């Protein structure tokens, strides 16, 4: 039977093969069984909006498969992408806990499987399962650290070039590439989306990439970017 949007749906958390690698999902059996009862497993296509900035919180969305773009909008329509969420992350967590509106808009950039839990069910679940509560505290802590990192990057970087260099270095440090002399990264976002991550224009990002390629600091092969000169990129990131 074909799965929606080409996804291999994980029907039960109890049999999920990647559960142990994910902070929130690696719960004791009793908590996991209780979670099974309150969750709704759903598949979404690319480009689906899970929730909108300013919307009253309905509940949390545990990202099982795919990636989600989290963004903030200004009143004039300008968008800032705050983060690209990966599987294992719980979206809408702080809004659901606090009862305040969602602070961000969440839009899928791949076909995704998401486990949705209604707010009242999730709050009761946290009250009844201290392990889950602790996991939530850990995940909120990571989100907060990421937000502080974002503030530092946006507020203290002089130029778009610095911010782009920092972003590329950050991306290249994932998936086991950190120790390599010439790390590779998959450019999953368009120049427009990268511009929205660092608070600049698409034209500036395109110009900066052209500049980096001309100086042979990076090399593009399709959607893969190879960092040829990590030291030079670090100098740009540190405004040297």
């Amino acid at each position, binding site marked *: 039977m074909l799965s929606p949007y080409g996804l291999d749906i994980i029907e039960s958390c109890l049999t999920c093969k990647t559960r142990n690698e994910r902070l929130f999902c690696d719960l004791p059996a009793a908590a996991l069984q209780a979670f099974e009862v309150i969750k709704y497993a759903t598949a979404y296509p690319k480009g689906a909006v899970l929730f909108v900035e300013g919307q009253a919180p309905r509940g949390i969305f545990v990202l099982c498969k795919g990636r989600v773009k989290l963004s*903030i909008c*200004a009143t*004039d329509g*300008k968008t*800032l992408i*705050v983060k690209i969420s990966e599987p294992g992350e719980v979206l809408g*967590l*702080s*809004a659901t*806990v*606090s009862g*305040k509106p969602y*602070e*961000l808009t969440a839009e899928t950039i791949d076909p995704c499987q998401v486990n949705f839990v209604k707010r009242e069910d999730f709050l009761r679940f*946290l*009250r009844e399962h*201290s392990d889950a*509560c*602790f996991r*939530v*505290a*850990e995940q*909120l*802590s*990571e*989100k*907060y*650290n990421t*937000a*502080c*990192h*974002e*503030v*530092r990057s*946006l*507020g*203290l*970087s002089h130029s778009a070039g610095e911010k782009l260099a920092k972003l590329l270095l950050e991306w290249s440090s994932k998936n086991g590439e950190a120790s390599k002399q010439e790390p590779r990264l998959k450019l999953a976002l368009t120049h427009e989306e990268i511009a929205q991550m660092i*608070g*600049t224009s698409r034209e500036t990002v395109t110009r900066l990439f052209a500049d980096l390629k001309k100086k042979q600091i990076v090399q593009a092969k399709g959607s893969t970017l190879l960092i040829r000169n990590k030291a030079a990129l670090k100098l740009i990131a*540190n*405004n040297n």
Partner: protein
Amino acid sequence: MESAIQPSCLECVERPEHRFCDLPDEASHDFDLLKTFTVLPKGTMLFRTGEPAHNVVVLCEGRVRLSVCSESGRRLTLRIAGPGEVLGLSAVLAGSPYQMTAELLDNAQVASIRRKDLLRFLHEHREACLQVVNLLSQDLHVAYDRVRSIGLARSRRSRVPRVH
């Protein structure tokens, strides 16, 4: 650090008004046993960006400036923390270095608790863990507000953040 007589959280008149502190008596009693109470002068650095997060600090009295710093030493104020707030929480729970610098703006009274003691305390006291979850949620809302104001202001080139 200058030590002082260790007052009890159970006798603190501010306790009902401070979110983290308003715990059941049993949890407050256990917290009393774990904390170290200190009086510190204005200008003291409670912790700095990048330092290993060994403690959280409960601000009993006084104000703290929370800021982020670049490698070159430029500083950006995130916000001013007031009495009842728990500082360094996210770093301690995530097991990461402190993400910001905390500097006393006034003479202050603080209660610090070591990381391993806090983790055990939260595992043993569900109410305290729920309070921490609530506190972190509030902190995250404030952080995202800051991201919004800096990130979107910079893209409009209409405001320059306060940088030292």
